[in-house]
């Protein structure tokens, strides 16, 4: 399967931040969630996809084009919306739609009108009077109606009220039916990522904590509650977090298989609970582990 986005050992240094050897692949037709706290490097990575920023080293390929050298060709097929992106405040959505239509022959006017209705937008309202949710929806209309092969969204649901968030996520889920379209979106919200994405990449302070298929990744983590006497090392591989309260221990492990429970029992522990973790719990455990190390 060809990749829509490929980062290979990409580094970028800013005075206060270093993106450290980012390597990731987004196969065509797949959805990847880029998760990280503020300053993790998500926006830097997304800007590199658009060719707005040049890596200090490493390569970025988007839809088969090396970036930033072929940014024009690539951007013809990329739809981008960011939380900090604004439209012209003294013009309305209709004007913006005409402007985008003048640039992209692929603009689908019927789909644009469908999206306007679906998002309950007034296309004749000046964008300066839009709420944050309306701004996000307007940006989505402008990018989706030209049917790009790659959709890149920087924090699309941040700051949205529950109804707007539902509508945006529902429309994103809808566009994912098109199997040739790839989506890469960054978010603080692990819930959104868990709901939509096929694969995840965790970034923290410019380092990649994980980048792989979501189901496999979530399935490899477990939270184990056990009791027993802990003397010295636990002796298990892949322990991300260990909390003890007397003889009660909570273990968050990232390389789980059936043998882990067996080994704990062999060491005299009584395992009372083994449960799957949500993406949010996994993300927090990963960040805390990275911070400790």
């Amino acid at each position, binding site marked *: 399967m060809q990749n829509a986005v490929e980062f290979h050992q990409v580094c970028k240094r800013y005075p206060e931040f270093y993106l450290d050897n980012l390597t990731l692949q987004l196969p065509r037709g797949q959805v990847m969630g880029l998760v990280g706290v503020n300053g993790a490097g998500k926006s830097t990575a997304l800007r590199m996809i658009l060719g707005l920023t*040049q890596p200090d080293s490493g390569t970025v390929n988007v839809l088969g084009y090396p970036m930033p*050298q072929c940014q*024009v060709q690539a951007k013809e097929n*990329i739809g981008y919306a960011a939380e900090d992106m604004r439209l012209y*405040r003294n013009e309305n959505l209709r004007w913006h739609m005409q402007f985008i239509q003048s640039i992209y022959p692929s603009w689908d006017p019927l789909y644009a009108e469908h999206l306007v209705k679906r998002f309950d937008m007034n296309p004749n309202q000046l964008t300066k009077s839009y709420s944050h949710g309306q701004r996000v929806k307007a940006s989505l209309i402008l990018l989706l109606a030209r049917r790009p092969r790659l959709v890149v969204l920087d924090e699309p649901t941040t700051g949205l009220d529950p109804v707007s968030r539902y509508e945006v996520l529902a429309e994103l889920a809808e566009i994912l039916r098109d199997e040739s379209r790839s989506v890469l979106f960054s978010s603080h919200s692990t819930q959104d990522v868990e709901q939509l994405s096929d694969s995840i990449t965790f970034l923290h302070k410019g380092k990649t904590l994980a980048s792989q298929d979501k189901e496999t990744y979530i399935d490899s983590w477990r939270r184990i509650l056990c009791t027993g006497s802990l003397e010295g090392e636990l002796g298990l591989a892949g322990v991300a977090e260990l909390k003890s309260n007397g003889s009660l221990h909570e273990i968050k492990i990232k390389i789980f298989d059936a043998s882990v429970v067996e080994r704990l029992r062999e060491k005299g522990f009584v395992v009372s609970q083994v449960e799957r973790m949500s993406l949010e719990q996994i993300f927090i455990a990963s960040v805390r582990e990275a911070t400790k190390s």
Partner: protein
Amino acid sequence: MNQVVENSANTNSTGGAIDNSVMEKRPMLNMPVIKSLVYKDIYLNRKLIATYIGGAIFALSIISLGEWQFFMGSIVLISMMIGLGNHQLSTSMISERKEQTLVFIMSQPVSPADYAMAKFLSNIAMFFVPWSFLFLTTIGVLILTPLPDGLLPFTVLICVLILLNHCITWSIAMEVESEGIILTIMIGLNCLFNPALYFLADSPDIGGHTRGADIVWNATSINVLILEVVAIVLLFIATLYFQMRKKVFI
């Protein structure tokens, strides 16, 4: 400008080879998108341009009616020309960064070279065209009204000086992102404009003929004009040269 060239960037940032099959032959500049960006800038600034042109025409309509009308008309005309330049730079370049609409533009299929060319052409359309119209109208008013024709060389030098000041501000606005720096340059050039007026008016070769009936182009006035025009051309060439070599926006 629209010639077809092979993209010269055939190595990546680490020096590795890039698959040449994706390096399609394409025009060096994306002219259809540049055209859309220029139309966009003109459309967004249309009311502002019309307002300043209206103000300048009002100034020209009173300039030959009497002495105080001449001084008032001259000041209004100069203010309208300077205001047109600074105001449209503020809305088309400074605001685009400040109000974060630049991200929206950068996400469209444009390279930094396309963006620089679009801003250059917008500047031509939004300042040079109105400036040329007002300049020619001013010359016409001088020749066709009882105002002394000897004012013409002085007027030409002042109008071209306004153009030069605008070009300096435009070049700096293309290069720096700081609104503070650009505003400082605008204020600084405005402050220097009055001394320039004084020196031109005080020069016997230029200011000495303003009340005469004959148009006198001498070596001094021609040299000043050449200097102004050369500076404008060099500013444009240098700005476009450096802007169009940029590979990335940020």
